[in-house]
């Protein structure tokens, strides 16, 4: 496949994010809140999160270094088209992140503003609910950003 170094790097980041945080999401939703105390559930979630962050750092460092080693300095730095594609896709990721943050803020403020308790929490019994909503929104925005970047590269759109 005819790919620039930046596109290969984006593919790696997308796959690493999907795999590592996909497993993390499954693990968090598998925590049995009824058999654990709240603090124990938080401890399990935080242990899983630490592992996920560690894995993503290790994968990114090792594989990004390997990809970079295969290219020239100019390819590693990227050119004007790479920068334009990065800017365009950053915009998509930013929109997803903004909407997610606004929804989370709404979820936190609703009970205080109009005395209406949100029922979303009841459907998703996970430890540190608000923290996880923000984390998942961030991960989703990253996935959108990487995917849009790849689509633009594949389409030669910009």
């Amino acid at each position, binding site marked *: 496949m*005819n*790919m*620039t170094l930046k596109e290969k790097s984006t593919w790696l980041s997308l796959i690493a994010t999907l795999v590592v945080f996909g497993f993390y999401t499954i693990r968090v939703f598998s925590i049995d809140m009824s058999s654990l105390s709240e603090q124990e559930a938080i401890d399990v979630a935080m242990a899983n999160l630490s592992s996920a962050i560690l894995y993503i750092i290790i994968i990114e460092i090792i594989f990004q270094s390997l990809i970079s080693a295969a290219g020239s300095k100019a390819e590693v730095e*990227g050119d*004007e088209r*790479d920068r334009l594609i990065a800017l365009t896709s950053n915009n998509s990721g930013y929109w997803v992140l903004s909407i997610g943050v606004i929804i989370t803020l709404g979820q936190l403020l609703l009970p205080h503003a109009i005395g209406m308790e949100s029922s979303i929490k009841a459907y998703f019994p996970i430890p540190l609910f608000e923290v996880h909503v923000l984390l998942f929104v961030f991960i989703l925005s990253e996935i959108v950003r990487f995917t849009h970047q790849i689509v633009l590269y594949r389409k030669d759109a910009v």
Partner: protein
Amino acid sequence: MAIVNRVRECRFFADEMTQQALAEAVGVTRQTIMAIEKNKYNPSLEVAFKIAHLFNKPLEEVFTYEAED
């Protein structure tokens, strides 16, 4: 696209210069040259001037603006 170019033709008349050689000469990737040739990407003025300069042609001979209806 309103801006069309004759980069492929210019390469042909420059002893069939490769996309890689052109890319290295103007400081972009080969994929960017491919996108330019397919009229999928409009390069910056700087890169457009560099390409025209490399082929010893005025800019408007390599890149042309075609008004859209």
